[in-house]
């Protein structure tokens, strides 16, 4: 569990610094770029955060889905008005998908996956959480690089 908490803190720190950059530079975005960035940032962020939340709190599925919705609303309303709808939709989608993946890797019998032993399940959880953190870091680096271009 300690590794998941550390990865969650790492993702939150990356997200907060990117969100701060959004706040500073949102005047410079044109329409098309706003929609693209809103879609990309909301989808990746809500997916990763909801995956970690469902791994940390397995009994509160509603909390993680509504957390994804809240992230979409937050990023979308930071940018512009049509982006709010886009962010809401993509945030909810990412939240539902992250919750589903977290529920399946915690209980593989849901999907008929032939993994029985406890050690294999916890190993799977750590590998997928670490992989999601790596992917999210790559996406954040690409988003921050796109502000500079």
């Amino acid at each position, binding site marked *: 569990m300690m590794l998941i908490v550390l990865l969650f803190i790492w993702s939150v720190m990356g997200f907060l610094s990117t969100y701060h950059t959004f706040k500073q530079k949102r005047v410079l975005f044109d329409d*098309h770029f706003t929609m693209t960035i809103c879609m990309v940032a909301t*989808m990746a962020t809500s*997916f990763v955060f909801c995956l970690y939340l469902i791994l940390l709190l397995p009994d509160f599925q509603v909390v993680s889905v509504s957390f994804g919705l809240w992230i979409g609303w937050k990023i979308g309303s930071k940018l512009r008005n049509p982006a709010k709808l886009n962010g809401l939709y993509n945030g909810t989608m990412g939240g539902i998908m992250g919750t589903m993946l977290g529920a399946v890797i915690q209980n593989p019998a849901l*999907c*008929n*996956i032939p*993994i029985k032993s406890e050690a294999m399940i916890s190993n*799977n959880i750590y590998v997928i959480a670490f*992989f999601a953190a790596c992917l999210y870091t790559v996406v954040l680096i690409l988003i921050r690089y796109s502000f500079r271009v």
Partner: protein
Amino acid sequence: MEMFTLSGFVCLDIFLYVCFFIYLSRKRKLIGFQLGMNISQVMGGMAALLSGIVLILEFPFHFTLITIVSTMIGVLTGALFGLLFDYQTFITGLTNGMMVGLMSPMIGTVLDAPDQIIWLVHGLFFACLILVMISIQRS
């Protein structure tokens, strides 16, 4: 479904992807960013979906590894098709491929009748290819 048929499908998909990539890279000056964004999304998502379902049916005991492999295939395909056009198409295709690739092995594990789904997904893939060809010709 037999191993031999699945391997044939994998070879056919890789061949079609390479041919379509060469075709697109010769025509990319004619394609605007709107169509380019749709092409990179469709191609990245389709590659992730096909690889996830086919690989999990071929090796059902390696769920985590298959998830990582199909995500990497989706990310790389979306990024390659997006890099033909623009930075924004690149990042959109990358994210869409990642999202579908993380989900697709789950669909493969719950199937009761895998043959029908494999035929359906391949039919969808060919229909997408034909639609993209038509819209390139008309643009």
